């Protein structure tokens, strides 16, 4: 990993107080014996005690080591050191002995579990595990099918009383059946019950798409292989990263970062980074997870920049999710070209044709202007066609940038509306 920039480093801070304290320490005079190698930065920082704190950061992780008593992770010393490094104020040097020992240890530990990509420790045991899972999923799907048919036969009308418990119980059964994807879909269905007067229609939509997964699973063998992969991943089979890297479709390009959406949750923070190839025009999605309250990995580049590299796509009829292998440092990119509202919706329809369960779709809209739409906002293109923004989304930044002039906006589309991620102020990308 090359030099980090200040935003990336501040993104690592566990809270605002650490970020602030870190900025206070990002001055050369705070540090002695500081240095940087290709893989680490280190230095001594005088604290309140007699002995200065020994601080080191392994840039491959990043991982931190500091002799200070702080429970924050990374501590302000590590942040300060990284900020100083980001500002180019740490001179390259030879690793001190304590730094070398630590980084070497980490490197050897990281090497150990690594097998050749795709290689499995015990192929027979793995096969047995897979077979057991297939059985469980199949019986789970059968149970789900019976349940759905029953509901439709007796009617969803009385559903608002018993819905939540029933659907939650069913979701838990699907987790047991090792079908977490379906469990999520069932839980989403539970969420619409009783919400607004149109909920029966919404519930029917959600349940019918669950039904579609179940019936697709029944005839998995007849489906085209890519669609079968999509069905399996919707059910919740995950493909190992190592396999994706070896067997996945590879596309080399300069990948424009269209933007990112971060969804904090009680237990898990999910980040979706949407990419678009400069030459191929291919779209890609990088998913990142972190335990709640823990920092996410730094972005490979800022929205509006190129990451040169190779995407290895997960299998499926609509290959979107991918792993990124960066080959060159990030670089600035021009303002991207985009769609009219009409073209944008058409591109979403194409994605539905490949994967009827697809809910989110990245869009770049060109020459759109803000308009009021009900209590919220919409973006209107030069033809007068509009797309609504996600209700409740804070549009003030976007509005301020536009000032009523036509602008380019990249966002994530779903049925509820467009959630803008990035817009361009003339040629300057602005993160929303």
């Amino acid at each position, binding site marked *: 990993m090359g030099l980090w920039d200040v935003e990336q480093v501040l993104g690592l801070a566990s809270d605002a107080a650490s970020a602030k304290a870190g900025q206070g320490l990002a001055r050369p005079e705070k540090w002695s014996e500081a240095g940087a190698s290709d893989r680490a930065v280190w230095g001594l920082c*005088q604290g309140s005690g007699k002995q200065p704190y020994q601080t080191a950061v392994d840039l491959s992780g990043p991982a931190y080591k500091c002799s200070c008593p702080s429970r924050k992770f990374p501590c302000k010393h590590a942040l300060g050191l990284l900020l100083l490094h980001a500002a180019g104020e740490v001179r390259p040097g030879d690793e001190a002995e304590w730094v070398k020992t630590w980084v070497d240890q980490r490197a050897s530990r990281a090497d150990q579990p690594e097998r050749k990509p795709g290689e499995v420790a015990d192929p027979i045991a793995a096969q047995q595990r897979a077979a057991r899972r297939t059985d469980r999923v199949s019986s789970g799907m059968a149970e789900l099918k019976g349940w759905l048919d029953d509901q439709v036969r007796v009617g969803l009308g009385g559903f608002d009383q018993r819905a939540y418990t029933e659907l939650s119980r069913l979701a838990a059964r699907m987790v047991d059946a090792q079908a977490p994807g379906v469990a999520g879909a069932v839980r989403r269905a539970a969420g619409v019950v009783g919400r607004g007067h149109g909920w029966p229609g919404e519930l029917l939509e959600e349940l019918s798409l669950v039904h579609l997964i179940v019936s697709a699973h029944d005839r998995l063998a007849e489906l085209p292989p890519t669609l079968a992969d999509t069905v399996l991943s919707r059910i919740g089979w995950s493909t190992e990263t190592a396999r994706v890297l070896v067997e996945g479709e590879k596309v080399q390009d300069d990948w424009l970062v269209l933007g990112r959406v971060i969804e904090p949750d009680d237990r898990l923070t999910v980040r979706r980074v949407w990419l678009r190839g400069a030459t191929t025009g291919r779209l890609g999605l990088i998913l990142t997870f972190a335990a709640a309250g823990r920092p996410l990995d730094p972005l490979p580049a800022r929205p509006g920049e190129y990451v040169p590299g190779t995407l290895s796509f997960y299998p499926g009829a609509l290959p979107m999710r991918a792993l990124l292998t960066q080959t060159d440092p990030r670089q600035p990119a021009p303002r991207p070209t985009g769609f009219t*509202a009409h073209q944008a919706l058409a591109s979403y329809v194409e994605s539905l044709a490949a994967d009827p369960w697809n809910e989110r779709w990245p869009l770049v809209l060109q020459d759109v202007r803000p308009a009021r739409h009900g209590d919220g906002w919409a973006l209107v293109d030069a033809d007068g066609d509009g797309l609504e923004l996600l209700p409740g989304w804070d549009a003030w930044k976007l509005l301020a940038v536009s000032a009523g002039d036509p602008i380019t906006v990249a966002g994530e589309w779903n049925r509820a509306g467009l959630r803008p991620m990035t817009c361009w102020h003339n040629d300057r990308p602005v993160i929303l």
Partner: protein
Amino acid sequence: MKGWDGLVSSALLGTDRRPAHFEDLPEHIQERLGDGGLLDAAALATVYKRAGRKPLREVDPIPAAPGEDRPLPRPAAIRRLAAMLGGFQTSALGEWLRAADARGWGVPPEHLPALADYARHRAEYRPLVIAAAGRRARWLADLNPEWRYLHAAVAESNDPEYWTHGNAVQRRTWLRTLRQQDPQAAREALTEVWPTESAATRADFLGLLTDGLSLQDEDFLESALDDRSREVRRGAARLLSRVPGSKYGERMTERLHSHLVPSQGVLAVDLPKRLSESMERDGIDSQNPEGIGKRAWWFLQIIANTPLSAMELEWLQTPVEGCAPDILQAGWTEAAIREGSAEWARALLQSEASTGDRSPAELLRLLPADEWARAVDVLRKTVDVTELVGGLPVPWPESLASMILDQLVKVGSNRAWARLASIAARAVPPDVLDHPITRESTGEEDTWRRRLVETLTFRREMYEELS
């Protein structure tokens, strides 16, 4: 979509009771449905509906904000602005905006919402944010009622509707704006409604006349000296004492002469024996504060409100008979502050005169800024430096700033200097931000010294980035 509602009601009631019918569904769905059931039909219809979504029509874009954008400063400056809006060194925000404005830089529009929210409860930032927002100020104000102040300058127009039918704040704003544009018209508008306003409103509106005060206001103010409300009478007297050449000033001069006679190198004082009705009418307070006699108190107020032109600077050095010289000195201090006289302030400070209830700092700020350093250097022997410089407007002149920082270099990290350091951190002008103190080690501990150096360095980098 055709037939969808039928599917929903079958699903609600149950196919046992209401079998699903598919004849109403679009042909494309029927073709694909085959012998599928309700859920198959619903799945097809769901995807069909989602795919058939059309763009919104007849939504009108908001008209664009007219005008041009300024160029943006370099990315480092923009990052610093973002950091300040995020809570880091936020107190330098106003300085950043001023410096950027002075150099012709704009503010990246994505930061305007945060700036507008910040200035909503901080009136002193509003003009800066309005300047920074440029053509977007009015545009945003029209969209978001919480930022209405962004076109404050325009909203507080001369629409007399505000004056006749507005609430207290709107009327006050209207009057203040008019007073700034046309002092006579404002006074006339006030005279017209004067008899019908409450005492509190009269006193409040009267205070607005401070702006653009002139001899033309005299008749109105003289009549206000006979107001029913004591507070209004006081306010009128305060204003009259600030009008050069007023009858009020002549009356005070007369009183002075009847109680103070310079003769043969001494000032002979004969303290007033009683408080006349005319003295009370002119706002002389009968009740003496603690530590001063009644008669001396009345005399002090006479001096304080007599035009300085009726008195001589030499009197400062002249022996006094008939009362303590402190009384006169305190009166002159008041008069110097009232008239903003540098000449008297300088003379009072040089003679180490008593300043009564006032701080010497209040006299200091009447001097031209280039004299401050020298004056502080002399006064520090008797007056606390922090008190002296704390009341001075910022930024300080270079000479004063260098002198204070030179001193702070020498004092280690003694806590007694913490307040001075925190004042200096904000008051040092751009050209002195590179003072040697910023290059000395401050240690890891959170001392005033470290905070001072951090703030100075932060501000220095800020100006470099905006240059």
